[in-house]
């Protein structure tokens, strides 16, 4: 008998993949015999391999010139066409994924991200759900699951069960993470966002305020993203000489650590054992949600609906409006909130 296979397209960012995991895990629970292959972005493919509920990852090369891309797409279609799938699910709603799926054999469904594919998906008889932003997207995933006759039971989703952790850090004391990535700087992120733009001195003050708020009971670990931030270089000037991108210094007799060029795997491992996370809303808040770590995430005021679309299902997340670092330093409500959340956790 042929092996039972299902193919899921998720060719976008890490956060998109993580938020899709409850859907994929529940699908696997409903159809345990099925072999799940993910068509992912090239960037995500290695990361996705860490999850035991995924049997195979097919990376989609997109950062190549048009002719090579076309050649590559057709090659991919020819390979994927050799198998018949129980379900082909275009979870990213991308045109490229829809295009590939058109040539494949199996029952097809799509989570539509835009109106562009509504008509075509109707013509080609896809089960379709529109990923409406007026509600958190887990509800839209859930509706697609229901159309495919299964259910997402969020309470029983253990994303990191059997996950291949590469734990590099083992801190003895409890710690709070400040994830200081490019999202804090509008020039490196969305130009229409409120610029938090923390300077080196302000980062220092922010760390001190957090230490003070928590009565120096927690250490602070500062993590960074992949983009180079000039202020961070200055900020690091009074840290001890680094060992493997790992900087330390003492503030109020409490250890403050900085991890330069933090990888996503490092972040997962750090978040897992942390007590609290402060970040700008993004992929990392999905990680903290899966570890049940209380989190304060900064969001852009005029994008509240969009933010809730991504985070509405996160029970331990508190959203705080983005403001300049100067305002954030003087925002007593922020520190009161931090204290309350830490005390309650």
């Amino acid at each position, binding site marked *: 008998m042929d092996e039972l296979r299902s193919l899921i397209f998720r060719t976008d960012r890490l956060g998109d993949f993580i938020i899709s995991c409850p859907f994929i895990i529940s699908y696997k629970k*409903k159809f345990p015999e099925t072999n799940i292959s993910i068509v992912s972005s090239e960037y995500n493919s290695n990361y996705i391999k860490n999850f035991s509920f995924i049997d195979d990852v097919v990376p989609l090369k997109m950062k190549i010139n048009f002719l090579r891309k076309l050649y590559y797409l057709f090659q991919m279609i020819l390979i994927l066409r050799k198998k018949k799938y129980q379900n082909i699910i275009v979870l990213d709603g991308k045109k490229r994924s829809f295009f590939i799926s058109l040539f494949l054999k199996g029952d097809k469904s799509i989570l539509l991200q835009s109106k562009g594919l509504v008509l075509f998906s109707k013509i080609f008889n896809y089960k379709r*759900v*529109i990923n*409406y932003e*007026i*509600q958190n997207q887990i*509800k*839209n995933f*859930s*509706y697609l*699951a*229901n*159309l495919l*006759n*299964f*259910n*997402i*039971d*969020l309470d029983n989703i253990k994303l990191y069960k059997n996950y291949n952790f590469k734990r590099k850090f083992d801190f003895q004391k409890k710690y709070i993470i400040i994830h200081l990535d490019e999202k804090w700087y509008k020039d490196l992120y969305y130009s229409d966002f409120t610029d938090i733009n923390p300077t080196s001195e302000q980062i220092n003050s922010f760390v001190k305020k957090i230490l003070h708020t928590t009565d120096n009971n927690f250490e602070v670990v500062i993590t960074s993203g992949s983009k180079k931030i000039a202020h961070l270089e200055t900020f690091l000037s009074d840290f001890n000489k680094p060992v493997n991108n790992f900087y330390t210094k003492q503030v109020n007799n409490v250890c403050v650590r900085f991890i330069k060029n933090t990888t996503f795997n490092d972040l997962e491992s750090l978040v897992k054992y942390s007590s609290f996370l402060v970040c700008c809303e993004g992929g990392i808040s999905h990680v903290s949600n899966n570890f049940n770590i209380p989190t304060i995430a900064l969001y852009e005021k005029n994008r509240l609906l969009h933010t809730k679309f991504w985070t509405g299902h996160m029970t331990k997340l508190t959203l705080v409006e983005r403001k300049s670092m100067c305002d954030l330093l003087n925002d007593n409500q922020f520190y009161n909130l931090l204290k309350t959340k830490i005390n309650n956790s």
Partner: protein
Amino acid sequence: MNLFSKKGTKILHIADMHQRHQGRLFYSSGKKINNGFIKNNFNVLQISDRDFLKSNVFNYKKNSFINYIHNTIKNFNPDIILFGHVDSLNEKDIYELKNDHKDVKFSQYFLDTLDPNFEQFSRHKDRFFLKYQICDTNFITTNPSSLDFIDKSKTFFIPNICDRSIDILENYKYENLEYDIFFALSHGQHGGILKKGYIDERVEFINQLKLNDLKKNFFGIDKNPVWGEQFFLELSKCKMGLNLNRGMPIKYYSSDRISSLIANGLLTFLQRGYSYEEFLEDRIDVIYFEDHLELTDYIKYCSKNYNERSKIACNGKETYFKNFENILVTKYMVEKILEHKLSHKLSWMN
């Protein structure tokens, strides 16, 4: 006194209120739900979709219907919009309504079976799914845990409700009634009459009952179903009633005839397999049967034993109201929709 200092819950109830049927369906579930809201002192306003859209050739009235809803929302400012079987609005219409009124809680109730083995299952599922994605809460008459395709975090069971102002009969008080057993089926309540060539599996079951020496008041088999006050008149003449569902048993589902029978004091026979034993005790509140042979024996025995019949029927009515009265059910619905703590916890509530 500042009128706005005391804010009550406002509900816009969009469902078929059967005005075009001129009173023929005054005891419909939609009516009982509406009455429940009023009895709970909620401020409820109705829009009867099918009356509004009567003679809607080529769907030309749809836009004016949607405008009517928008204007009503604007004028009434409801906290909740509760949809009944409003099949005229599709997913896109519901999305646009929700998008324009994000602070209003959207909810629906769906009273038809969602049993996957039922012959018209996919039609029922499609109708239910028209509003399901956008509705914050959904209420169904089947246990959600029995259905694979239902999000249990936003879908809840409600029973077929009874209403003290409608279900007023007390047949158990009378030893000598004209008929022994009542049964009614219809080929759709809107048409009201039997359709030619339509085969209902329940007729075959009824024909297997050996009740030659008993007086039967059956509708929907050889004679057309009865409606309105005539339905209650015929019901009032009977000692016992038979509740028979189509399809395979599924947890908690029943058609709404169950409330018409038990809540009006008839000794009622229920099929096994629907888990109603969790609410109504066998031979205490109702009598459960497995097949036509067992049912035949029970009907014959109970028709002759008034005391036993009366006691069970009386208990049944009392238990049914204690668990499924519209005041309780609609309060539960509102508490679920508004995510409030339940003020009253009964075994069927989750």
